[in-house]
């Protein structure tokens, strides 16, 4: 029997044209508000077992022994597996470097690493069994920062590296290093009238998506397995899973189950292989659902970073040079670290014109939790630092911080530090102008006729101030993010589009493997089909591996790349439909041969608006189906020595203005307003675009004032893996977020659109920090800023 809750197609009609540029509503909206939308944790199968993972209780240790006998003896337990039970010699996986063991082999390298897996008839049985597995550890010293990891006698996190970065890194505990040198920093430095330096710290942020890692693996009669899973990229999972399972890729079927948010945290595998191993071992469906505690160990986090910056400027406010060194902590396994290094280095200058730069970014191997993809990776950390530097420079020069930025803002044609020209609009100064021009929120908005409304004051419901100590501050920031996979990656997507008459109406079906994680890709695909094919009804087929790869739902790329693939496939379908029309009706009207023909309102029409035929009549019983891969223009790797190269596809820009109120005595912050201006190229769905910008902005707010995974530097153990102590903003912490959307087309992209998901996460954090500095006069060189940093009690 099929798994309960397995996704089936969703058909959505539209009373309006419902094409691109309209704020059409989500096709899955009704299912999501009625509780019927099946997320990966909702999947259910008769006779299914529950999987449980036993994780390491220490960060770095040799495994002396594992005894599973008591666990196996527990009634209701169907399987217990360790490294020794893996079916093939392929026992590692990884996005780029296959350095991550499916189950620990002789050694654990971070707190919470999977050591053994259990399948049982009830989650509690599985938990009890896991607790009965005896693991003896011999603890090893931990490396937790640059000094300890790169010391000459440092313990190596991975002893025998043979990955493609191993040859060029200065120390085996450095995953990847990317320098970028351009111009002549020494002589440019000589022209500087002011030089500012800074050392900045960015804390470890968690994606904190609400839907925990989960999925259901169902063994199949042919010896294969079908996995219903929440992920960001089905085909990437498949490529990593199949070799470990010892199965050809066509015997590992993947269907996307409902995804409860992602933000980068589902780029790496979590429970995918474990569930499949247990299903194949027991011959029964196996469901695994992490709880929130486990989720903090089950996915990578945003790289914490140390950033060392030096900028110079002339008295009249022009930047002379920039030197920086960015040290990212990648934790125990590589994950996306190499790409994070590439982004951090190539975007380290920010959206500014600086001709003379000396840049170095590295990612470390340590025994801290593995870090990898999170919204805006690499660029987020850099933006926090370079925007702090911009404010410092403006202050040194006695200039307005916005004017100073505008004076140095890049524009179309500016060369990146990599030598790549920015060949589409780069309205950096304009975004700053717009965000500054928005009206400021009223002062003392918390005063009411009944006294101070504490809900609108720092501290909120906790009743800490009725206005005492409260000072307002305003801050600005702007950032630049690359869109799409960079550095020569073959970044393509696949779309299958079918058109046919169903119940007397033309219907388009769009089938891709795109992971809908909440971003609204399914809405946009239907809109594209309506625009290109002139139909009202569009069916979105569930995402699965029966169609080619759509690439990852990350790097702000899906609307661009899979949207581009859907558009391309629709255009080919349209050509074939018109060909059928010409064949059937061409002789009735000369325009079939001579005019530019469009599909609109279920009809074939000329560009002059004349109706030639109904699509229903054109298609008759025929169905037209096209599957195509689509690629954006290629990129190049960065030179390993100089960092030069056309590494990126497109850039995305957003600017923020933050207004905060700080209780300067207690160090509590209330963000009053967080305004954003962003260029989106073309808003395919304005409602969704604004929603993305507001959501990204709020994640930036979170890491400005509260969000941080705290790792004990002595033991490398995570100290706050829960929603009690890892805090994300509530609705009372989140201000109004007015958004000004600018649409300057990028002629290289489908419809002129720009990837938008990440840029708002960059500038939000430094804008809030700038506002807090403005309110308090403090330097504040780390994020998140905590009450003790604002009160001198750290």
């Amino acid at each position, binding site marked *: 029997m099929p798994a*309960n*809750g397995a*996704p*089936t*197609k*969703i*058909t*959505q*009609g539209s009373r309006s044209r419902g094409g691109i540029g309209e*704020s059409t*509503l989500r*096709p*899955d*909206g*009704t*299912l*999501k*508000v*009625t*509780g*019927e*939308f*099946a*997320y990966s*944790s*909702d999947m259910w199968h008769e006779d299914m077992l529950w999987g449980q993972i036993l994780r390491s209780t220490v960060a770095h240790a040799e495994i002396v022994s594992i005894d599973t006998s008591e666990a196996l003896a527990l009634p209701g337990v169907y399987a217990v597996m360790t490294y020794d039970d893996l079916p093939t010699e392929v026992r590692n996986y990884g996005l780029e470097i296959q350095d991550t063991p499916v189950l620990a082999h002789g050694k654990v390298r971070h707190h919470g690493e999977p050591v053994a897996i259990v399948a049982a008839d*009830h989650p*509690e049985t599985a938990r009890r069994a896991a607790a009965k597995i005896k693991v003896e550890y011999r603890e090893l010293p931990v490396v937790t920062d640059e000094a300890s990891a790169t010391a000459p006698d440092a313990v190596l996190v991975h002893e025998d590296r043979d990955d493609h970065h191993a040859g060029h890194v200065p120390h085996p505990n450095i995953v990847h290093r990317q320098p970028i040198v351009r111009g002549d920093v020494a002589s440019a430095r000589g022209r500087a009238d002011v030089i500012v330096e800074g050392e900045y710290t960015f804390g470890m942020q968690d*994606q904190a*998506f*609400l*839907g925990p890692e989960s999925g259901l693996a169902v063994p199949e009669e042919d010896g294969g397995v079908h996995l219903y899973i929440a992920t960001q990229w089905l085909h990437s999972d498949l490529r990593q899973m199949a070799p470990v399972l010892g199965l050809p890729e066509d015997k590992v079927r993947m269907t996307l189950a*409902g*995804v*409860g*948010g992602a933000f980068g945290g589902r780029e790496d595998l979590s429970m995918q292989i474990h569930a499949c191993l247990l299903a194949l071992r027991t011959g029964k469906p196996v469901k695994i659902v992490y*709880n*929130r505690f486990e989720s903090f160990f089950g996915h990578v986090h945003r790289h914490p970073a140390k950033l060392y910056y030096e900028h110079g400027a002339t008295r009249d406010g022009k930047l002379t040079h920039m030197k920086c060194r960015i040290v990212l902590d990648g934790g125990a396994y590589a994950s996306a670290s190499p790409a994070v290094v590439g982004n951090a280095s190539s975007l380290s200058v920010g959206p500014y014109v600086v001709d003379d730069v000396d840049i170095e970014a590295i990612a470390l191997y340590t025994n801290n939790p593995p870090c990898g993809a999170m919204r805006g990776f690499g660029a987020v950390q850099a933006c926090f630092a370079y925007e702090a530097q911009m404010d410092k420079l403006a202050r040194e020069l006695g200039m307005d911080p916005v004017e100073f930025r505008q004076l140095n803002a890049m524009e179309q044609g500016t060369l990146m530090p990599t030598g790549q020209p920015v060949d589409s609009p780069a309205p950096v100064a304009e975004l700053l102008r717009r965000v500054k021009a928005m009206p400021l929120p009223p002062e003392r908005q918390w005063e009411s006729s009944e006294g101070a409304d504490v*809900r*609108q004051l720092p501290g909120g419901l906790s009743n800490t101030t009725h206005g005492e100590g409260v000072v307002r501050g305003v801050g600005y920031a702007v950032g630049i993010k690359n869109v799409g996979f960079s550095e020569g990656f073959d970044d393509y997507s696949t779309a299958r589009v079918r058109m046919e008459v169903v119940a007397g109406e033309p219907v388009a079906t769009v089938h891709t493997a795109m992971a809908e*994680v*909440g*971003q*609204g890709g399914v809405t946009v695909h239907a809109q594209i089909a309506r625009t290109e094919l002139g139909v009202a009804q569009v069916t979105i087929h569930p995402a699965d591996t029966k169609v080619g790869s759509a690439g990852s739902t990350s790097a702000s790329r899906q609307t661009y790349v899979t949207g581009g693939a859907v558009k391309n496939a629709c255009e080919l379908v349209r050509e074939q439909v018109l060909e059928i029309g010409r064949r059937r009706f061409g002789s009735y009207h000369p325009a079939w041969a001579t005019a530019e023909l469009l599909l609109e309102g279920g009809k074939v029409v000329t560009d002059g608006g004349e109706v030639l035929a109904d699509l229903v009549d054109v298609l008759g019983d025929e169905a037209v189906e096209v599957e195509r891969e689509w690629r954006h223009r290629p990129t190049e790797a960065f030179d390993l020595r100089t960092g030069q190269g056309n590494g990126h596809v497109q850039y995305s820009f957003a600017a923020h203005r933050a207004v905060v109120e700080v209780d300067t005595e207690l160090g509590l912050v209330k963000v009053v307003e967080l305004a954003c201006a962003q260029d989106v190229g073309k808003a395919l769905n304005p*409602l*969704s675009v*604004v*929603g993305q910008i*507001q*959501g990204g902005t*709020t*994640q930036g707010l979170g890491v400005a004032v509260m969000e941080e995974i705290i790792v004990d530097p002595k033991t490398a153990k995570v100290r706050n893996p*829960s*929603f009690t102590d890892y805090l*994300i903003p*509530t*609705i009372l912490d*989140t201000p*109004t*977020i007015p958004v000004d959307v600018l649409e300057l087309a990028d002629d290289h992209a489908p419809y002129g659109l720009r990837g938008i998901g990440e840029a708002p996460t960059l500038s939000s954090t430094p804008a809030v920090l700038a506002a807090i500095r403005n309110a308090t006069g403090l330097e504040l060189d780390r994020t998140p800023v905590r009450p003790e940093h604002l009160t001198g009690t750290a």
Partner: protein
Amino acid sequence: MRVNFTVNGRPQEADDVWEGESLLYVLRERLGLPGSKNACEQGECGSCTVRLDGVPVCSCLVAAGQAEGREVVTVEGLADHARQRSRGGSRGVPLDEAKAWQAGGPGSRTGEEAELSTVQQAFIDAGAVQCGFCTPGLLVAADEMLEHNPDPSDADIREALSGNLCRCTGYEKIMDAVRLAAARQSGEV
């Protein structure tokens, strides 16, 4: 142990319940009602919010046995609940019908034919749903607030929803949705 209680107006019985199970687990895994969500299981996110004898609670923190004999309303029953509220009545369902009943799969519904409560429709219309994992809990909480505070200020809305985390939207569209639902309920729009 065995637990009997009423869910969305229908009597339900769950057997072989482990004593440490939460109401959330019983709803999701034993009664085929996965609409209430399992985001944190520590009362810190509100995704599992249900009405227990009319009161919004985190179902992850209600022991299954504590639900014995109580009435529960989940997101799956929200539209019915709102309809009954507007009619001012209640109705029961025969036990055999209740046992046969379960949440449907996503199916191929277009959504336009479904009957939704005001607050559900407002969430769709305002763009308040992205990944949707927080949505069921927010809907139950927002619906309950509007029941006793039909004309909330923004600060009232924020306070009433301060126990429901959302990671996608930045809450702005959720504010819009609740304002819209309030306006529609009072017949303003």
